[in-house]
């Protein structure tokens, strides 16, 4: 066991080199699950007791402990819809306050959100009720909310998320895709104009087409809606 200077680093680099030339694989978790040693600490597993029932008591301790907030609990309700079962805020108590509140589906007393919050949600609740809290009717719900408020307030989207069980991010993704749905108050002209300029839309295309067919002088790129 004589001490050879630099042996450690050579060993380390040898391992690196070996791994470097080995074939690589990207495993599509969770569709594919590689064999993992039972001792592996990153292993996610729900255990069953001797009667075959799940030992999980939905105590939310794992959700509380997960540093990247990736664990939550969910299930299928009587209408076959998937819901995340948010725990009460206390269960996320070790987290930052806003995070705990947001995960429990409550509104967040965050300064940055404050000015979004002061809307009356009765209209949203009525629209949700009309559409049976069904996330498959999301476009109808969003269109209804926009008709009621003139735009899609953050608080309304949160409410929709909470009531339908669809993730906030999913609803935001849907709403941001369709050109006729907007997150800006109609009064906010500057912001609206910036959005319009970024997506010049059909009217601009038609005008441009008519011009281009007859050789009208081409406008500067900025005027055609490209944002540099």
């Amino acid at each position, binding site marked *: 066991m004589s001490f050879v200077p630099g042996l450690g680093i050579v060993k380390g680099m040898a391992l690196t080199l070996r791994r470097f030339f080995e074939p690589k694989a990207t495993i599509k978790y969770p569709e594919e699950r590689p064999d993992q040693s039972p001792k592996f600490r990153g292993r996610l597993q729900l255990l069953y007791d001797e009667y075959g029932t799940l030992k999980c008591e939905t105590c939310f301790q794992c959700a509380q402990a997960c540093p990247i907030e990736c664990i939550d609990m969910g299930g299928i309700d009587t209408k076959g819809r998937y819901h995340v079962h948010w725990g009460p805020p206390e269960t996320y108590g070790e987290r930052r306050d806003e995070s705990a509140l947001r995960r429990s589906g409550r509104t967040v007393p965050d300064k940055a959100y404050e000015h979004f919050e002061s809307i009356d949600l009765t209209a949203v609740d009525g629209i949700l009720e009309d559409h049976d809290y069904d996330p498959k009717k999301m476009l109808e719900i969003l269109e209804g909310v926009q008709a009621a408020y003139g735009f899609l307030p953050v608080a309304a989207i949160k409410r929709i998320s909470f009531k339908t069980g669809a993730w906030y991010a999913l609803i935001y993704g849907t709403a941001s895709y369709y050109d006729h749905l907007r997150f800006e108050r109609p009064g906010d002209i500057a912001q609206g104009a910036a959005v319009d300029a970024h997506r010049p839309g059909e009217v601009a295309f038609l005008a441009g087409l008519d011009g281009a067919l*007859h050789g009208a002088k081409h406008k500067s790129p900025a005027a*055609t809606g490209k944002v540099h």
Partner: protein
Amino acid sequence: MTTVLKTPAGWPSILLARAAATVPAGTDPTDLDIAVRRGAFEGLKRAVRDLGPAGTIATVASSGLRGRGGAGFPTGEKWRAAAATQARRRYVVGNGYGADPSSFTDRALIEADPYSVIEGLAIAAYAIGATEAVLAVRAEDVQAVQRLEAAVAAAEEAGFLGPDLLDSGHDLAVTIRPVQGAYMLGEETVLLKALEGRRGQPEQRPPHPTERGLFGMPTVVQNVQTLAAVPWILVNGADRFAAIGSKASPGTILVQVRGADKAGVAEIPVGTPLREIVPLAGSLGRGRTLKAILVGGPSGGILPPELLDTPYEFDALRAVGAHIGSGSVVLADDRACIVDLGRLLTSFCATEACGKTIPCRIGTRRLVEIVERATTGRPKPTDLQLLADLSADIVDSALCDHERLTTLPLTSGMRYFGPELDAHLLRSSCPAGVCRPIAVAAGAAS
């Protein structure tokens, strides 16, 4: 803008046959009694009483009808695939979105004869065993939405739709669904996503919607013109339909022509040479000559006048680098700059690309950058090669047809208007004097 243009005498009419001016102008197209007197729901009766589901599919298949939504897929085959898939429920979706903002073909049809579309929808649903049918229309076309809603209500009242239609034992619920907000909604998988209330991004195929479509159930998505042709086929026979138009794609189709002083929708037999379609758009204006024809809408091909003999037909147009697409045929006169036109079309398509995949999100954007460098007189020496390579890569790796077709304006421009593109890319000059080449290069302009 939904003017219906007169076609030369002797040209067959199928889609607009019932709406044709046999009745005094100003009659309400949603009046069920008038429509029935003109033959509405005769096709459905024939399907239900004589043919049965399998017979209906066989008749449609033997007529050779191909989808009018752009891709030209054989309709009978689509129905057969959906009917053959085991499922608890099936859907039929009528695609009346009419994505191209410069084309009003589907809208003209719906407004002129809503019953033909609804009847086609009911026949398709009966044939594949669907109990729910959705007809998606553009929410902006208020009149089309209203007429369809009125027509569906009247037809339901009269027992042509709804539970146990025409005493066939078949139930059918028809919903009119106005959708809006994205060009991509015309694409079938995107439309299905919108109907499910989700973000509208295309899906990988297979599985095709005929296997797994709306809410995971087998779904037949069909353009409204395709649907409107079906009743005519059942009433007049598959053979008579197959005799009209070209051999490979029989029947008629609506085109949207757009010229200098005239624009409108016309019904033409598939396979009509472009030469005979162009005059429908009127004259180009005094002293003007035809420089190019844009066939297929924003992602169409730009064809030179030498190709005027090309038949307006799915395969022939594909072969020359254009496509039927939205059914639009647009004329550009000698003042137009092809590169500028290509820039306009490509940037529209790139803005409307959904952003799901890399060819879609980045590839189309790079195409726009290349062509914008060309039109502002700041091309790079490698741009011509880059344009060719990038287009080929996008076509190879695209998820949906939109990206593939987005390359068409520029690749067809390259193919037929090479010298003009070279002038922009190699000499920073615009022969048509439309673009703004940089000052230094302008001295060397042609």
